[in-house]
């Protein structure tokens, strides 16, 4: 079964680059994981990064948000060099990373989790407004405000993680497998949310195992193999590329 490739409604405005990774390399001990990655996310764009397990997708995001420091190359965000920045200063600049897995604070209440998201913000009114917006976006959270985060189901935790990241008023969102381990129906809802966030102008770099879903959402896509970029181009084109369909879409597209 072939899903129709829905073109993103608004054509991406190919303007100023928000995030530029240039020739990035990364090591864990002596093992080289990234071998010179160059990747750009432009204003208003939704870019996805595909690749098999262990290709280095998560590592790319970790380097971009300075949780892990690249061994070579550079990370530029809004024109600033962040290659060696301290992780907590990166968030202050508006680059927010939602990591792989359930990364919420299990013993904090949902409300407190959201408050933590806005840690670096000082505008009380804005925070309150965004909190309301998040609770509208994810109504489940509103019902459970006083409940410990750890009591949510996996999918709900993923929503909380997303909401918490948005509380930081990001200028760029890095999403690592937001639908991992989540039932298809809920995954669709999360996908729809991601798209609507992007339509409102938020640039997003999305890592996904579900290539079909990712290519449907994204303007452009990069394919990572063994730590280097094997292909990139408009998502609609890649979705029809035989190499991509064979490797990531399971069969002859």
């Amino acid at each position, binding site marked *: 079964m072939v899903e129709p490739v829905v073109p993103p409604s608004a054509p991406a405005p190919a303007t100023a680059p928000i995030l530029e990774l240039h020739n990035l390399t990364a090591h864990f001990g002596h093992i080289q994981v990234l071998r010179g990655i160059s990747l750009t996310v432009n204003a208003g764009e939704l870019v996805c990064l595909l690749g098999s397990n262990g290709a280095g997708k998560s590592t790319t995001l970790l380097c971009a*948000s300075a949780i892990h420091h690249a061994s070579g190359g550079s990370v530029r965000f809004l024109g600033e060099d962040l290659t060696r920045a301290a992780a*907590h200063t990166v968030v202050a600049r508006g680059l927010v990373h939602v990591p792989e897995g359930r990364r919420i*604070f299990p013993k904090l209440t949902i409300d407190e989790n959201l408050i933590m998201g806005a840690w670096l913000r000082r505008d009380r009114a804005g925070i309150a407004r965004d909190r309301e917006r998040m609770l509208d976006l994810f109504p489940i959270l509103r019902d459970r405000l006083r409940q410990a985060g750890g009591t949510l189901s996996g999918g709900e935790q993923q929503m909380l993680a997303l909401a918490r990241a948005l509380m930081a008023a990001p200028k760029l969102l890095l999403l690592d497998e937001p639908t991992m381990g989540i039932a298809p129906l809920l995954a669709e809802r999360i996908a729809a949310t991601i798209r609507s966030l992007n339509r409102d102008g938020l640039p997003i770099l999305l890592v996904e195992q579900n290539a079909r879903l990712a290519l449907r959402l994204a303007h452009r896509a990069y394919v990572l193999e063994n730590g280097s970029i094997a292909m990139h181009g408009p998502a609609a084109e890649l979705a029809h590329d035989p190499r991509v369909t064979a490797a990531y879409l399971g069969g002859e597209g």
Partner: protein
Amino acid sequence: MNGAFLSQLLIDGTTTGLVIALVALGYTMVYGIVELINFAHGDIVMLGAMLFLTLIGLLGLDHAGQSWLARHPWVALAVLVPACATFGAAVAWTVDRVAYRPLRHLPKLTVLVTALGCSFVISNLGLLWGGLPLAVFGGGRAPSSPKSVPDLLPTLNLLGADSVVFLGTKEALVLGLCLPLMAALTWFVRCTRLGIAMRACAQNPVAARLMGVNVDALISLTFVIGGALAGVAAVAYATYHGTVQFQLGYNLGVMAFTAAVLGGIGNLPGAVLGGLVIGLVQAATTLWLGSDWTNVVVFLVLILTLVFRPNGLLGTQMREKV
């Protein structure tokens, strides 16, 4: 056994227990955020008590009625308590900054051995401090012997002169220091932004960093708060027990850490509960078996409790970082 007897036991146990609890809070907060048994914490209390005694000497508070301050001991205490708290905070911050922080990414045992080293260094500093030629230290001829702390507060029974149960000014001081501090700490950790962030760091430091939290700064803050509590506990201990010695850091520290473990380590109400339990057990043992047996009974209680509740009285499943 009559009511008065029991009430006295309760008062004594609670007072001792609250001092232990105040120290235990420092252990448990630090443990919650960096998973380290900060062995130096008890010795910080000891150093604070040394400072307290030194200041008493320098301000002439040991000669009752000689100076204006000596005639107004509550004012003197209002100066000494913040001084000791600041000092404790400064020492705790320094220890973390100099000794622990560079080892943050190394295995637990490495940091733990460093903590033991810090404990040795600080308790030795306390020993040397006790050798200073001051009148309050008996001229410093015997650095290791216990130094008695002069009574700042008048001895009187707040329950009335003819009451069988004794609740003196010292007990009142301990209650007056510990209870408000514990309430303030609870409020801070539960309700303030910083408190939430502190709990967040304890639960998941990486995620906290992804929110833009400066985890190192927050860890420092934890040490500072713990150190300040230790400084206050030093005043409470020295006033209530009336002696100061360089080994008090170990003795009080072990009791406090036991309290933290008993309550469930990392858990603030647990630390207070553990402290109270130990204080009461100590008081009861001293009364019925003699003070030689207090440690034996306290540790037996600890072991028995852990056999039935491996994560302490209020603790939940502990996570193990490898």
